[in-house]
Structures are given as structure tokens and as C-alpha cells.
């Protein structure tokens, strides 16, 4: 039986090596994606376009607006005259945020009163809208702290702590809060869910399209032999892909890596077995290469991107989202990857995730075995 597996694996390897363009692209495309994300493309929301309707035009309002001008999160694009104009700027997308400062802004603040500033945000991109509101809140809080300090001085403050309740924030795992530190490891998970399954999804269906599958059916090879023989070389390719990306992320991008490379490699191997198996299931169930490719995008790639928790914690998702997240292997691998890059610690916290990946592999190959019935027509 081992001989047959090896024979099939050898044939697949030879076929893979015969098309260097294809194989080369399987390494080049992921790397290009990583370099784009690591160097050029910033996912941090900065320089949001903000316009101001300043009806007060006092020292107070100017100071308040300066807080926005000096923040890297905003770029002041215009001073407008009316609310109608402001609406128009939001509508046409020339501004994402408009501040509406009332005429009595300075007068009320100097009289120690509360004053409301209208903030209009473009909600057509909701997460961006929420980020914009959060930043407005942050800039306003800074201004409020200035106001409070001045007020306290006036009321005989003798130094010491300004606020009666003060927060001390410490950031763990990624102290500089750089998006690259989590985007690149996150992309490792996604990329390994894109290319390996797409490669293996064509394996069986291609033979079916060209008719060579009949040779396999007629051979003494069992379904296990076929699956194992086809999976082996591709798991190797996927694991190589992992090693290349890992090397690039640590040496080229100089990413923080505090965990165990062995643990990460073990998880990557398990994950590769899962992803290749997923591709094989799709391949066994479809009749054309086109259908297999589309199905891979829908069943493997898209859920990994949406639910694995690359941008926000899995725990934030609603019940449906969390359910899907726990059905896909990317979530478990993401846990190990993020831990290895940023958190460190031993293998124990990641044992459940590793077990889940192993269980997933068993289930996927069982389904592939069921789907790959030897039949003609």
C-alpha cells in the first residue's frame, strides 16, 4: 500500500515540477501580498478628511480645532459656512467628518458651562465612521482635560493628580500598537488558506475533466492511496510556503516573534494537512475545474477572511459569526500564530487549538474518502 501511495505522490510531484510557472506563482503571489501589506499598504485609519463649521470664531474654538489639526488622525480640508454646505461635503465624500461649533462656544466655556459640539459622520462605511467618532471623542477628551486643568488652577488646585480617577493603560503583546505586527501573521493564516486549497482543489477534478481518472479507477489503488498520494506533495508545498513566509516575516519585516518556532511549525503542518484536505473534498465533489475553484473561494477563502478574527477578536462576533468561526480551521491556526508571534508562553495554552486542527484533519479526509467513490460516468 505504501508503494502505491509513493507512486501516486511521485507522479503528482513530477506533474507539479513540469509547470514551473504555476508552482512559482504559488510562492510569488503570497510573498507579493505580504510585501504589499507589510511595507506599502497601511491599514491604520489616519488623515481622515475633516471640515469645520466654526460659528464662534473665538480663541476657544480655534484651540479646539487645533486639536484636530495637530492630530495625525485628521486632516482639516475646509472651513465651511453653513450646515447645508457641510451636508454636501459629506455627501460627495470630500469630508468624512464635519464639526459644527455653535456661536456661543467660547462664551459658555468661559462661563464654566457645558457646550455641545455637533459632529456629523459619514456612516456609509460604518467601521470607518465608528473609528472617526472614536478619534473625535479622543481629541475632545484631551481638550476637556486642558479645560479642567485650567479650572482647577482657578479653584485653588495645589498640584498633584488632576483627575480624581485616573486610568493607567498598559499595552501587552504589541506595545507599539503597530498594525504590521498583527496583519502580517494574520495574512500568513489567510494566505495558507488561499493557495494550498486552490492547488489541491484542481487535483481530482482535473483528472476527471481530462478522463485520466479512469486509469486510477482501474488501478488497484484504494481511495486512501489516491488521497494520500495526491495530498503528500501538496502538503509539502504548503509547508514550504509557510517556511518562506515565516522567514520573510521575521527577517525582512523584523516582526516580533516571542514564541516557539517548533510549536508554530507543528501547527502549520497540521493546518496544511487540513487545507489540502479541504481542497481534495471540493475536488472530489465537483465536475469542472472552474466549479472547484469557485467553491474553494467560497468555502475556504472567504470565511477565513471574514471570521478567523484577523482584525477584531473572535469573541466580538455575534452568535452566527462565532459559530462559523469555530467551524473553520483558520480560527484555530490564527490562535496559535498570534500566540507564537506576539504572546509566547509554552504549548499548554494552545493544546485545544492544536487538537481542534487534528480533529478537523480527520473529519476532512473522512469526507474526502466518502466523496471519492470509484464510479464511471
Amino acid at each position, binding site marked *: 500500500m505504501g508503494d502505491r501511495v509513493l507512486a501516486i505522490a511521485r507522479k503528482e510531484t513530477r506533474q507539479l515540477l513540469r509547470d514551473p510557472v504555476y508552482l512559482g506563482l504559488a510562492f510569488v503571489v503570497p510573498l507579493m501580498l505580504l510585501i504589499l501589506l507589510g511595507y506599502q499598504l497601511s491599514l491604520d485609519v489616519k488623515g481622515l478628511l475633516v471640515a469645520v463649521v466654526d460659528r464662534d470664531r473665538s480663541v476657544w474654538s480655534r484651540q479646539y480645532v487645533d486639536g484636530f489639526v495637530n492630530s495625525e488622525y485628521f486632516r482639516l480640508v475646509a472651513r465651511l459656512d453653513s450646515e447645508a454646505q457641510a451636508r454636501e461635503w459629506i455627501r460627495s465624500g470630500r469630508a468624512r467628518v464635519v464639526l459644527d461649533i455653535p456661536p456661543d462656544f467660547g462664551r459658555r466655556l468661559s462661563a464654566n458651562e457645558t457646550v455641545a459640539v455637533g459632529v456629523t459622520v459619514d456612516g456609509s462605511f460604518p467601521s470607518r465612521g465608528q473609528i472617526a467618532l472614536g478619534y473625535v471623542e479622543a481629541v475632545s477628551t484631551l481638550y476637556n482635560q486642558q479645560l479642567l486643568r485650567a479650572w482647577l488652577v482657578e479653584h485653588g488646585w495645589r498640584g498633584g493628580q488632576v483627575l480624581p480617577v485616573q486610568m493607567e493603560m498598559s499595552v501587552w503583546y504589541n506595545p507599539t500598537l503597530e498594525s504590521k505586527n498583527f496583519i502580517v501573521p494574520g495574512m500568513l493564516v489567510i494566505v495558507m488558506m488561499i493557495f494550498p486549497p486552490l492547488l489541491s482543489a484542481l487535483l481530482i477534478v482535473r483528472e476527471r475533466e481530462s478522463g485520466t481518472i479512469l486509469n486510477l479507477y482501474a488501478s488497484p489503488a484504494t481511495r486512501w492511496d489516491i488521497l494520500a498520494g495526491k495530498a503528500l506533495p501538496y502538503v509539502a508545498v504548503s509547508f514550504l510556503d509557510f517556511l518562506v513566509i515565516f522567514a520573510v516575516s521575521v527577517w525582512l519585516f523584523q516582526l516580533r516573534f516571542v514564541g516557539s518556532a517548533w510549536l508554530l511549525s507543528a501547527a502549520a503542518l497540521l493546518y496544511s494537512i487540513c487545507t489540502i484536505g479541504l481542497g481534495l473534498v471540493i475536488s472530489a465533489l465537483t465536475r469542472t475545474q472552474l466549479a472547484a475553484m469557485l467553491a474553494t473561494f467560497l468555502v475556504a477563502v472567504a470565511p477565513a477572511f471574514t471570521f478567523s478574527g484577523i482584525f477584531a477578536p473572535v*469573541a466580538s462576533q455575534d452568535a452566527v459569526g462565532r459559530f462559523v468561526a469555530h467551524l473553520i480551521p483558520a480560527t484555530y491556526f490564527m490562535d496559535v500564530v498570534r500566540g507564537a508571534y506576539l504572546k509566547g508562553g509554552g504549548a499548554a495554552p494552545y493544546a485545544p487549538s492544536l487538537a481542534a486542527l487534528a480533529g478537523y484533519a480527520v473529519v476532512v479526509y473522512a469526507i474526502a474518502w466518502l466523496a471519492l467513490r470509484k464510479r464511471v460516468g
Partner: protein
Amino acid sequence: MRRRLAALIRKEFSQLFRDVPMLLILGWAFTGAVYTSGHGIATELYQYPVVVLDLSQSPASRELVSRFRAPYFKLVEQAWSDREVVARLDRGEASLAVVIPPDFERRVQQGTARFQVISDGSQSMTATLAGAHIASLAHGYSVERLAGAGGLGARRIPHVDVRPRVEYNPNLVETWFSSLLEVFNQATMIGMLLAAAAMVREREHGTVEHLLVSPLRPIELFAAKLVPVVTLVPLAVMGSVLAIVQGAFQTPIRGSLALFYVVTVVYVFAMASLGLGIAVVARTLGQAMMMLLLILYPMTLLSGALTPPESQGVFMRSAGLLSPVRHYVDFGYQVLFKGNGLAYVWQDVAGILVLGVALFLISVRRFARLVR
């Protein structure tokens, strides 16, 4: 000549309709996939998991904890020791820990209270937002204490109160946005892939020679490959927008659906032309797919859906303008969510049209050169 073309188009359609599993997959792409993607969340702060270690157990500390409320925060657990807090953060079950010292109540009275927040920075975007929220939350709590303390009547403290108003999506429902984005993504990917596959298939099976010796000109051959894609995909897009985005998720659609449909046709034409261009270079479907991804992912990342164009450097911003995806995403949200007409989106429409025609002509020329 017209009859030749019609015959070829008919052949393309019947080839497409014969592959039943693929039709089912296409159906899922525009229904189930769009529906599930509406449940994912992107980068916003929503139900952010918080673990609390309250060593004070006093009215003041409970008051502070109660301010970590929905929809931004979600208390996953009350911890009783440092070890527990660390374990929750390490395992990713909580992304934020709030630690309140035992003497909190007394020190609030004295005006010298502190509490500690530990933030998991591994998802830096949400962590930054959470930090901003807590800072303003702590400030608000302090101001209330100051105003309330000290005898009769509230003291007056100067304070700027932010009154947010969100246009077009008042409650910032992510589902409206993400379901529509998924429809756009499907149109992009499927438009390219169907056209590319229609061409590569002929090469893989060797039937491209039959077509080459037929009296059809390359441009006719290309048109025949494009017609089914440009007919079917925009219809699927419309169906998905009406049934899932508007129907299932109750997203308010404000703009002209006719305008949206017409531009979607042009857009699918552009992406399908790009797909054909790839098919001319590729020899197998596998190769075509890899090349497609090489182009597709940078275009999607630069589309402005994931990250605002104004946050990018000049180079990336200009590169984005060369991508039809960027124009289409901008166009789609402007028309459907904001109800904007041509006066607002003509630049996007012009961009899609120019890029589409250019891609078509380049692809046809490459193919014609290959034939000779």
C-alpha cells in the same frame, strides 16, 4: 456574420448551463455567501471582551465597571486573581482587563484614585479605539465626581460634549456595508474567473484551434465569450442586492437601481475583459487562477473598502485609481447608500468605462498577435 456570432454565443451559454454543480455554487455565491458575510465584523469596536478584577468591591468601583457597557464592551468575566486575568488575556478570551485596587473607594474621595487597564495590543486597530473610549469614559467619571463633590448644588465645570450624528447609517450597522461589499467582491471575482475559464478551457481541450480556423475574427470570439458573463453576473448582482442586502438585512437603498445596474454591466465587462487578457497568457486554468490572484488581491486591497484612500501614501493612492474595483466600490456605496446620482459619480463611471474599454482592446490585441 451576425449568425456566426449568435451561434457561438449560444454555445457559450449552453456550456455554462450544463455545469449544474457550478450553477449551484454561483447561486450560493450571491445568496448564502452574502448572507453569512453580513455576520462578520471588520475593524470596529463591538462587544469587545473585557475581564474585570475588582479588588475594591465598593459602590465607586461598581459604578466605574458599569460604564464598560454595550455595544462597545462586553464583560466576559469577573476575575478574582492576577493569574486569572493573565490567563484570560493569554488565551485571547478577553482583549482588555480592568484592574481596580482595594483602596479605590477611599482614594476617589481624596481625589487620587487610579485604576489599571491592560490592553491586548495584538489587534492594534481595535485596541487603539478601545483605549480612546476608556480615556473618555474615565474623564467623564472624574468630571461627574468633581461636579458632584463638595456640598450643595453641582459645581460647574467647562466641558465640551460631543453630539454625534451619523448620516446614512445612524446606528452604524456593519451588516449593511459588509453584505454589499461581498456582492461587489463576488461580481469582481466571478466576472473575471468565468471569462478566463471560458477561454482557457478551449486551450486546455485544444478546441481553440477550431475557433481559430473558423471565419470568426478575434474581436468576435472575445465578444462571444463576454456576452454570457456580462448578461448573467449583473443580473445575479441585482438579485442579491434586492433579496439579501435589502430583503434579508433591511438595508435602506436610496439611489437609482437602474443607474446601478447599467454601471454594473460596464464593470463586469471591464473585469471579464481583464479575465480574458489573463487567459490569453495562461496555458492552464491553474496558471490563469494564480495570475488572476496576483492582480485581484492588490486591486481589492486598494479598493478603499478596507482602508480609506486618504490614509495611503501618494503612490498607493494613484495606483488605486488604475483599478476598476476602486471606482466601482466608491460608485456602489455612493449610489445605493447615499442616493447620489450621476452628478456625483460621473468620475467613477468614466473611470470604469475607460479602464474597461482599454482592457478589452489590450486583451483582443494580445490575442490577435498570438493567433498570427
